[in-house]
């Protein structure tokens, strides 16, 4: 199960931000994306996840294989931790949330309403959602925001275990997770603005 990206260009709000990106992500591997704020990492991840169409190029092996985690966790404050996870598990056609609760140390919180969790606990719950999806390719956008050191280690362990089972992960992050992972700096792929004189459908 390999995720292959060829000659990908992505646009934000109609303006190209990154172009000519190619990489592949084999099972058992992780790829860390780096680059300054605003360069288009989130746009790239959303394009790979299939939430927005690419400007050019192809993404192969992503459809129905990916689990996506972004800045917001998709949690309902009036549902309990267990109810939230059970819901996402059944949306992805699976059951069994115990492993996810164990992996992110959420057993003691399982009957607490998600609205009553701290920011870090919410994040852990959001990340544990990746485990219940059963999808092989994890696509994560700044997963460690508001996590403390212990929780970051917990997260790194979860990713390592996932890779050990033949999964893969594409992560945009600034901190060192201590993973054996390739690093891709997207800075050099910043889109070059086209000539100013001649404009066409892109209006540039």
């Amino acid at each position, binding site marked *: 199960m390999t995720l292959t990206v060829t000659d990908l260009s992505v646009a934000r709000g109609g303006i190209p931000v990154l172009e000519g990106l190619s990489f592949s992500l084999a099972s058992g591997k992780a790829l860390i994306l780096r680059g300054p704020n605003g360069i288009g990492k989130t746009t790239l991840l959303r394009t790979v996840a299939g939430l927005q169409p690419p400007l050019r190029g192809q993404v192969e092996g992503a459809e129905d294989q990916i689990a996506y985690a972004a800045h917001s966790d998709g949690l309902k404050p009036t549902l309990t931790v267990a109810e939230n996870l059970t819901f996402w598990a059944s949306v992805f056609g699976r059951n069994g949330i115990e492993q996810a609760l164990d992996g992110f140390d959420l057993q003691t919180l399982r009957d607490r309403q998600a609205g009553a969790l701290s920011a870090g606990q919410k994040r852990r719950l959001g990340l544990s959602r990746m485990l219940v999806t059963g999808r092989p390719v994890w696509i994560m956008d700044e997963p460690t925001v508001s996590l403390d050191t212990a929780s970051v280690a917990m997260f790194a362990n979860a990713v390592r275990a996932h890779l050990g089972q033949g999964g893969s992960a594409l992560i945009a992050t600034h901190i060192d997770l201590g993973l054996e992972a390739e690093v891709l700096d997207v800075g050099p792929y910043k889109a070059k603005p086209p000539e100013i004189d001649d404009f066409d459908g*892109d*209006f540039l």
Partner: protein
Amino acid sequence: MSIWEYANPKKFLATTEKVMPALWAGSAVLITVGLVWGFFFTPDDYRQGSTVKIIFLHVPSALMAINAWFMMLVTSLVWVIRRHHVSALAARAAAPVGVVMTVIALITGAIWGQPMWGTWWAWDPRLTSFLVLFLFYLGYIALWEAIDNPDTAADLTSILCLVGSVFAVLSRYAVNFWNQGLHQGASLSLDKKENVADAFSNPLYVCMAGFVLLFIALVFYRTGTEIRARRIKALMARERLEA
């Protein structure tokens, strides 16, 4: 050489620039001739007296109110299928013209209805349908204005236009069913017996041609404006990105 070449914004601007003066002049001449002919040189109707002269404004504006929506439907489809930006922008440019035409048709209808039917407004099927059409135009324009990202706005308004067209036709049948109405039948149709007298129909044709030309001129000009506005937006976004 295919028609799609004009979907390039620059080519569109260059071409319309050339035909604009002819369009403005043509529409001005036709509307002036039609209205002067209609206003000064037609007899009074034996039943409606001089109010029949309102027909030279009422019928062409009503015609354009519907045709403008139809044009928006076609250009929206072109955008959805072929993704030519000029097409989406032309739909956006036509909407306010359609609104003004609808308002003219409604106002002249109300002013005409007052002496003829004894009321400014009646919930007659035709009047009601035009009011509903007016609401559809308002919603369409409001959606364009509300969305910042131009491509998203073009997609959403196109789908609204497609869905709205179906519901507009449904509403037309619904109001027909709901009230049989006071309004006379079509003023011009292939069935000769139904038609208005020849004395009125010739200046009416001139006015209708004039309104069509005026509509084309306005839509071309406004589409050009929308293209430039879109380019301004793109250039500003690009500056922000480079900074």
